[in-house]
């Protein structure tokens, strides 16, 4: 019975990761063939969260943490993140002052990494509040570049899809690593993320 559960979970995790990879491939294929954009279009938006290690780690941690907590949090975290990110994005577009946004991004990696490392399972609203604060920081950084993009539509579509795919990747890895070694592999990954966040804070 236990083995069936593990197998089912592993299959779900593999499906989720495969889905993320398939989307990834489709997006790149479409970018290469259909989207005729110059600088600041779909490819720029899509690469923005992927090429910035700080953004990537934070988005990945959101998915990983949701999967570690299980239940509704598996999807409420990745659903809330882009919605709140819009607020930060609009603030960035308007050029509102946001001192220490880079520190906020580094702190988000440390906090999320530590939450995963200590397997912290707070009430849902606490988790949502925490990631909302971080989503504003990340949204601000993306939003500041948006109005100057050659094609804001494709830029927005690219970076929201990339952000979502990193969340899905995090969920997939989290679902795969939750069971082996009583979830210690996930906790170790969280600790690594927190150390990475410390690097960004001090660099």
């Amino acid at each position, binding site marked *: 019975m236990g083995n069936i559960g593990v197998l089912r979970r592993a299959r*779900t995790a593999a499906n989720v990761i495969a889905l993320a990879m398939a989307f990834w491939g489709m997006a790149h294929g479409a970018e290469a063939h259909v989207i005729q954009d110059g600088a600041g279009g779909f490819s720029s938006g899509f690469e923005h969260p992927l090429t910035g290690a700080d953004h990537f780690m934070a988005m990945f941690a959101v998915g990983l943490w949701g999967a570690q907590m299980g239940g509704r949090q598996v999807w409420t975290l990745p659903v809330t993140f882009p919605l709140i990110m819009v607020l930060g994005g609009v603030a960035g577009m308007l050029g509102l002052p946001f001192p220490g946004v880079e520190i906020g991004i580094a702190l988000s990696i440390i906090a999320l990494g530590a939450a995963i490392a200590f397997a912290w399972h707070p009430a849902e609203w606490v988790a949502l509040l925490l990631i909302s604060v971080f989503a504003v920081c990340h949204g601000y950084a993306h939003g500041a570049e948006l109005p100057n993009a050659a094609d804001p539509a494709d*830029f927005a579509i690219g970076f929201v899809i990339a952000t979502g795919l990193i969340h899905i990747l995090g969920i997939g890895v989290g679902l795969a690593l939750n069971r082996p070694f009583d979830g210690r592999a996930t906790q170790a990954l969280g600790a690594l993320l927190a150390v990475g966040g410390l690097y960004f804070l001090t660099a």
Partner: protein
Amino acid sequence: MIVRALQPVRLARWAGPALFAIGLAGLTALWLEPPDQRSLFGWWMLTNAGAYERLLPLVGLGILLGLISLRVCIAAFLAFALGVALGYTYAEAFLEIAGMLPGAARHHFLTGPILSVAVGLPLAAPSRARIVILPFAVAIAGIPLAAAIWATNPRFHDPLTASAGIAFAFWIVAAICLTVRAFRQTWFDIAGRIFGSWLIAIGLLYGGASLIPQRTPTPPPRPLQAPAGSPDSLTGPGPSMTIPDLRPSPLDRQPEGLDPSRQP
């Protein structure tokens, strides 16, 4: 084997993927056409009707209709069709209203953001709220879609081209809806909500970026610097000169041996 495949239950199960495959084959044929031989209609289908800002909300609408009960699905599909009909009939009025917004004319009259948010809201909403907002949201989604088809029609309101654009939109919605309904899994609800939140975020960010003007103006192109030692006639008019000197310079004069009129 063929008889088994043609059983009504199996047909219903594979109707979505089959519809998807047929349409995809048509699109691939357009795509594989050499660009210099591609017709205006082909270009429009690939770059306008098939633009990401329209494609993604239509995929979202297909997922949304696939996740709800059949009765609500049919009602929502009809509401969407009604929205498309209204949008096409009153396209000019819609574009006039949308055109009042700053920067809207440069971004397809914000049809993409409105469509994204209108589809994303019911998709991401909890089940009860979804049923309440669904008919209004899908009807609203149809209006900007039809207005965008009307406005970008490369053959100036040719009904055939517009019909193809509308059929393309309905094809995406129907193919995705039928596929989702036939292969329904419990995790589709979660995936749908996540996709809905992406659509809302895309719509709001794109809408925001369109309405908010660029903060840093595009720098003017750098003036071309004349190479060192070039004749004065190549440097352009001086500040006191109102009319540029267009007389042929000594460098423009062709060597006598190369004068075409003197060639045999």
